[in-house]
């Protein structure tokens, strides 16, 4: 079993912030409270995804390990974390 921590990067770049990651900032507090040290969560500057073509409309982006969560909401991100954890268990 791989003990590697899951990394969650909440994009706090301007595009993501305005399109909704302002409301994802709570993850930075709630995720450690929920998952302890299994998950690392932080706010990061622009992930570079918003400027490709018209992809601003899919912001806010969150990266859970290598997986990109588009139009992220708190629920979507938690679900992605749970899935990653379940995979690790296997």
């Amino acid at each position, binding site marked *: 079993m791989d003990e590697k921590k899951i990394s969650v990067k909440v994009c706090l770049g301007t595009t993501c912030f305005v399109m*909704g990651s302002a409301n994802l900032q709570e993850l930075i507090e709630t995720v450690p409270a929920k998952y302890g040290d299994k998950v690392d969560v932080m706010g990061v500057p622009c992930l570079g995804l918003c400027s490709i073509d018209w992809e601003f409309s899919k912001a806010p982006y969150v990266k859970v390990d290598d997986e990109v969560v588009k139009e992220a909401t708190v629920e979507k991100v938690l679900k992605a974390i749970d899935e990653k954890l379940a995979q690790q268990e296997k």
Partner: protein
Amino acid sequence: MAINTPKQTSHLKREILVRLIKSFLSDNFEENTRLIPYDMRPKGHEVPYRCCIYKERAILRDRAVAGLGLSIEKTDDSELLSTLAKKALERKEPEDKPLTVLTTACKGCVPARIYVTDLCQGCVARPCVNTCKFGAISVQNGKSVIDPAKCKNCGMCAQVCPYQAIQKIIVPCENACPVGAIAKGEDGHAKIDFEKCISCGKCVAACPFGAVHEKSQIIDVLKNIKAGKKVIAMVAPAIMGQLPCTPQQLKEAIQELGFADVYEVAQGADVTTKTEAAEFVERLEHGAEFMTTSCCAGYNELVDKHIPEMKPFRSDTKTPMYYTAEIVKKEHPDAVTVFFSPCVAKRREALQNPNVDYVLNYEEVGAWFIALGIQVAECSESKFKTEASAEARNYAVTGGVAKAVQTLLPEEIPAHPVIIDGLNKQSIRDLKKYAKNGMCELGNLIEVMACTGGCLGGNATVNAYKPALKQLTNYVNSSESLKSSEKIEK
């Protein structure tokens, strides 16, 4: 209710704004505007919200109409967005009524009424039948039935049902409006009565379909900048909690949009504080029982339209926007001034003030940054020419205005602040009572904020309330306080 809850509708509104700005900056504004609904819902695209792609496009088209600053109610369905874009470009000044309702999006909710659910047990006691003063309830086939022709929506039956089987179905906009200015008409569409509307923006925030739109002035501002005019931004204090950057970076970022300079409205708030403190002393020395603040545009409109008896108690001091605009126009008579606002109410105030040419809200400013690909956190820092006080910068937080005024009062005339943190039916009743009695038993300085949490809770803010408060408070704490030498002499 939580302040600034996240909403999918904001995402849509902001996306439209970004697309409008991009199309303005492109080489074919009119045609690219016409294409917005098709770009957002191209052939074969999934249909996320409505019955079919055509309806989705029709609604997006209407949202774009509001983004162009036009009234959705007044435009005909047959008018192309390209024609309307041209119209927006040619107008000399913004339209007067600041809100418009997207009736195509509005069909979704049923009119407010009382509804008997399946939980009804057809009990023997039948308190619903007995309490109804209008004889609207009868029992048929062992269940209570409401006769809609007789029901007056009073809700008494819902209160007495022992099974909680009767529910009051609300219309969110009607329910949120503190002055009864928006209602669903016979045709099922919500309509705003502008004789009553105080522009508080609560319906904008409450509608789950995002059907109430502010009429944007973004095209007007873009046009002035493109024409090479000297356009100056006046940013209301709440903005310092809105975006992930320092206030100095924000100033630089706004200049990158094409603004010639940025003034903090907190600068004008310092004038408001001094004037209002002096006024408070004078009023109390002349025997007044209390005074209310006068900086919230929503509250001012409330007094003007619904509580005229409060006028003698409301401070005559002007708002921070007023003083700031006066300063800017004095220093730059040739400037076009744009107020950056957290709420719709300031649009109304600006329309009445010749020194304020346009208003942009924080969502629109955010969309503009997106359209230009500006990362505010990567901007260099640009200093404000005049620094405002900590107290003035704290105006955006509920209680902040009263606190600022208090700082300058002489010891002999202390203020006992009463904070109205958000207008609703109850706080309006309280205010009416104070005005009628000519006194308020709770204190002598009543601060009124139309939005819960103060301007940080405004309908057009971008950041969530808690982090916004934290960020703004850091800025306030790093600013210089008012000096005690500035205190008002008795």
